[in-house]
């Protein structure tokens, strides 16, 4: 039996009717058509589905959509503000920190959560923050360079 659910995603309310066992990832992609969050392993291992739940990165494949109706959800689609890219997104472009791109949205969400409360992270802190995001192209070093560029003290 489907149930009515209200989700607050990227500052907008969405009223939908869904089966109670559907994950947040599936609902974001298939009901809200926000396909920036990716499905890699669907088991909490790869981090491609990372979104922010009340500001904290979580695997959206391990969250039931119907259980987070009280939360603010931020996906990669909400990262740019008023048409302006987030400094991390801009740095990913200038440093070429993207290979196939499948992990990129999840990586950016993990890093966004990091710099929100730690604007000048050390390389070690960056590694810990994205330890749950796998890049199968193994393109990590340019990601680290991009974070350094985006968070460098003027």
């Amino acid at each position: 039996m489907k149930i009515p659910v209200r989700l607050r995603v990227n500052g907008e309310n969405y009223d939908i009717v869904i089966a109670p066992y559907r994950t947040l990832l599936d609902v974001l992609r298939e009901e809200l058509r926000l396909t920036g969050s990716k499905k890699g392993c669907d088991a909490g291992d790869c981090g491609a589905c990372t979104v922010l739940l009340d500001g904290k990165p979580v695997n959206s494949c391990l969250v039931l959509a119907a259980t987070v109706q009280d939360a603010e959800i931020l996906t990669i689609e909400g990262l740019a503000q008023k048409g302006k890219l987030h400094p991390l997104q801009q740095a990913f472009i200038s440093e070429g920190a993207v290979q196939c791109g499948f992990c990129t949205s999840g990586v950016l969400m993990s890093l966004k959560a990091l710099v929100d409360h730690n604007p000048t992270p050390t390389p070690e802190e960056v590694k810990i923050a994205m330890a749950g995001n796998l890049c199968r192209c193994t393109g990590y070093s340019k990601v680290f360079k991009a974070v350094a560029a985006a968070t460098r003290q003027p």
Partner: protein
Amino acid sequence: MRFELLQPRSLTEALEMKRDYGEKARVLAGGTDLLVLLKDGKLKTDAVMSLRNLGELNFIREERQGVTLGALVSHNAVATSSVVRQKFPDLAEACAQVGATQIQNLGTVGGNLCNASPAADTAPPLLLMDALLTLASTRGERRIAIHDFFLGPRQTVLQADEILKEIVIPQTTGRRGATYLKLGRRQAMEIAIVGLGVAIHLNGSDRVVSECRVAMGSVAPTVVRARGAEAILRDREITSELVDEVAAVAAEAARPISDVRASAQYRLDMIRVLCRQATHAALARAREKKAEGLS
């Protein structure tokens, strides 16, 4: 993966639902284990009861008799809690090594215990602390020692109508130093090959150990204390020969299996290595505590 979703708004309501549904309802805390099992088809259930709305079980409370954790407190909240980091660094270290950030934000200490994996990272530190667990049902509450909670892999003493409510960590005596070491092939997103915690208690002297405790995960059907090893250091002046003996005897308390992560023999060898390292590290931390600051 298909089921009815129950979303109680309070513990009282949750206990009534659990009484009515019994084994037909699985409890969902963080979901990092349960949803994976359900998706894989390794587990089937008629209903899932999400405890996400039970804010009353999401707390860390410092009291005169110790520290109490609500069952729904996340690994991240424990790992970053100043109270836990200061008093129980071994538990903070364990929570900081569960999966990675995303899992630590979802996963809960209560869920980690109720899932009853022999590799549960939070269990060895809580075993070191002789933690008590409050189990609640509509029949009332009972408090049991964590040593009596686990029956085997994925098996606990929780009855069909019961929910783990809180974890009580008693106040420690003396200068306590402790650490939890986790061996994996990388530093994150791992299930422990061996997880091992050591707590050392000192009184006045920096050399004489008043109490030593060793707890191990992933080396037996449940997490275990190595009580034979602990007795070696009690009221003794510490030497590196004695620490080697503690490590050797700790390995004797293990009953590891060979699996996809490691052979039984490798696990036994690594217990000796980790136990030595953890004992020295715990001792160093105990010595840092000032003799007058007996908490």
